């Protein structure tokens, strides 16, 4: 395990492990944290995992850990690793099994006091419209060949089917469709896992949450994002479901031999990778994009279901049940982006695994309505605690390849959490705080107990204090829907 003596502090919230720490490191490793979060990170194998990523061929500048870092497998969760094209590597493990897991934030014109009397009906309607649970299929039946369209067109497919508006697409990362996705690079088994799961929530830490915007920290950005104090908002946290898991499984398996072909030596087999300009690297990139598009389409259909639930539960009871999109952004992806390194603009493959893109003002990839304030960053908290909307900054472009944290980050294992917390008790506790809970499984609820996570406010404070992503709004939950 990495000793704290190997870590030097370079700024108030920034620590560094020099590249000389281990012989096989190609670049230094940097961690954003305060003293307590750093201690957390050193408590398990996360920092060792971060150091392992610094050995990857083609890695540039430094590898990064966000303050919500925790132990994963291969790459740590909360890690950012950029490699240089053309021959730098792309690693399926650097994206993770839940490709393009991400968050969508929906806004409304409804005030908290308007919705309170109907909250039970709304929570039940959302739960009924949005299928959840392990391996559960949904009501969207895809025609023969239609899954390939989902994979190659993402949210554009959803719009063609009437599940999305132009505004939804405009307010989604890359317009909800990564160009260059290839359905043929996705295995039959992955397609089999994905064919009936479009518009489903799944299980684990995925959820839909009805929130109230409690505090605004940045009036200008909040106004631009359409957020105000007392407003009802909805978060959807979900990814590419079984299809994405299978795509990652397939390529991690295939790349076990690929690394031998290219003579790549690695400290952990989960880090397997391929040069981006190789046929293997290109095949994974095309498959990953396809799975990412599936995830965009999935969150889009879920948003459509949420809208139906709002109409069903609230029509005639609130002034305006309309639900609009604020933004949708992934936190498990590898993207080909231009960044400035040592004074030169170069093309990189930025792996974000449990890290959110946070582009600063005037970046061309930000929707025009938000361009001068910066990209909205969506940071969900653990169940029952606050979530945050931040905005991307120039500092993020300079320091973190335009990336920031993605959530609270686990601090306790699922087994430990279940030993300490009983699902039914947790539900009562949440209900006692005025939070409605609709959950398929009580043990699943216990695994996601807030005490199993770090404090999201603390994580956000580090990012805000570093100037990487600054606070716009703080949301608190009033209804939680999960599998």
């Amino acid at each position, binding site marked *: 395990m990495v000793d704290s003596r190997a870590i030097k502090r370079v700024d108030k919230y920034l620590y560094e492990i020099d590249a000389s720490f281990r012989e096989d490191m190609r670049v230094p490793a940097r961690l954003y944290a305060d003293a307590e979060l750093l201690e957390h990170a050193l408590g*398990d194998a*996360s920092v060792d995992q971060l150091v392992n990523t610094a050995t990857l061929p083609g890695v540039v500048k430094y590898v990064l850990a966000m303050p919500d870092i*925790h*132990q*994963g*497998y*291969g790459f740590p*969760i909360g890690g950012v690793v950029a490699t240089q094209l053309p021959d730098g590597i792309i690693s399926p*493990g650097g994206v*993770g*099994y*839940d490709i393009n897991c991400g968050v969508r934030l929906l806004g409304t014109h409804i005030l908290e006091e308007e919705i309170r009397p109907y909250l039970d009906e709304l929570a039940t309607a959302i739960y009924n419209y949005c299928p959840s*649970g*392990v*391996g559960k299929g949904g009501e969207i039946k895809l025609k023969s060949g239609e899954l390939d369209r989902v994979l190659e067109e993402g949210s554009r497919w959803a719009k063609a089917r009437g599940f999305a508006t132009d505004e939804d697409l405009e307010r989604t990362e890359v317009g909800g469709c990564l160009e260059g996705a290839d359905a043929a690079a996705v295995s039959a*088994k992955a397609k*089999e*896992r994905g064919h009936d799961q479009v518009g489903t929530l*799944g*299980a*684990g830490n995925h959820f839909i949450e009805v929130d109230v915007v409690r505090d605004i920290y940045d009036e200008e950005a909040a106004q631009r994002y359409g957020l105000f104090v007392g407003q009802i908002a909805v978060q959807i946290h979900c990814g590419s479901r*079984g299809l994405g*898991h*299978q795509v*990652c*499984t397939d390529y*991690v*398996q295939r790349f*076990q*031999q690929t690394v031998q072909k290219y003579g790549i030596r690695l400290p*952990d*087999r*989960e880090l*397997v990778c391929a040069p981006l300009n190789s046929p293997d690297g290109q095949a994974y990139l095309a498959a990953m994009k396809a799975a990412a598009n599936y995830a965009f389409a999935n969150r889009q259909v879920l948003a459509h279901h949420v809208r139906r639930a709002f109409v069903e539960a609230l029509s005639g009871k609130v002034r305006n049940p309309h639900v609009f999109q604020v933004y949708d952004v992934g936190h498990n992806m590898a993207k080909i982006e231009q960044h400035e390194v040592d004074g030169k603009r170069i093309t990189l493959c930025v792996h974000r695994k449990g890290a959110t893109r946070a582009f600063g003002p005037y970046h061309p990839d930000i929707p025009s309505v938000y361009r001068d304030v910066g990209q909205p960053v969506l940071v969900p908290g653990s169940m029952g605690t606050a979530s945050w909307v931040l905005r991307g900054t120039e500092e993020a472009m300079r320091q973190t390849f335009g990336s920031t944290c993605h959530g609270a980050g*686990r*601090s*306790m*294992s*699922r*087994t*430990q959490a279940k030993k300490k917390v009983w699902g039914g008790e947790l539900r009562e506790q949440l209900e006692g705080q005025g939070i409605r809970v609709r959950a398929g*499984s009580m*043990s*699943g609820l216990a695994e996601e107990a807030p005490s199993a996570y770090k404090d999201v406010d603390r994580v956000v404070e580090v990012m805000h204090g570093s100037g990487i992503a600054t606070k716009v709004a703080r949301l608190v939950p009033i209804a939680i829907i999960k*599998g």
Partner: protein
Amino acid sequence: MIDFEEVEHTADIALRICGRDLSELLVNAALGLGMLLADSADMPTDVVQTRQVEVQAFDPESLLVGWLSELVYWAEKDRFVCHKVEVQEISSTHIKAACTGSCVPELRHHIKAVTYHNLQIVQTDRGLQTTVVFDV
């Protein structure tokens, strides 16, 4: 001899598995996975079915991951959980087996995938041992 136990991991689930030889290790890995997926008490006894599995890999570790990934796929596809394995053919890179089990009404855990994280099959005094981390 059935020999596996769950070990702590911050975000995911890990399973330590032992076996006198590779065949027993793979059988125990499948049974350990079955335990994570469903309580034996919840397994329906009236609709037992047997499915054939064949996996080809290039070393014992990739065989273990390929084998378990197949069972994870079935668990997600139709909640099939296996509680008995009969190995018909085995080598360090190939397994052919009959898996007996049933489709359960509800899975205990959602296992997304089987990882290679620090995966190594090692020889100990008791035989072979390994720890597999599952992404959940």
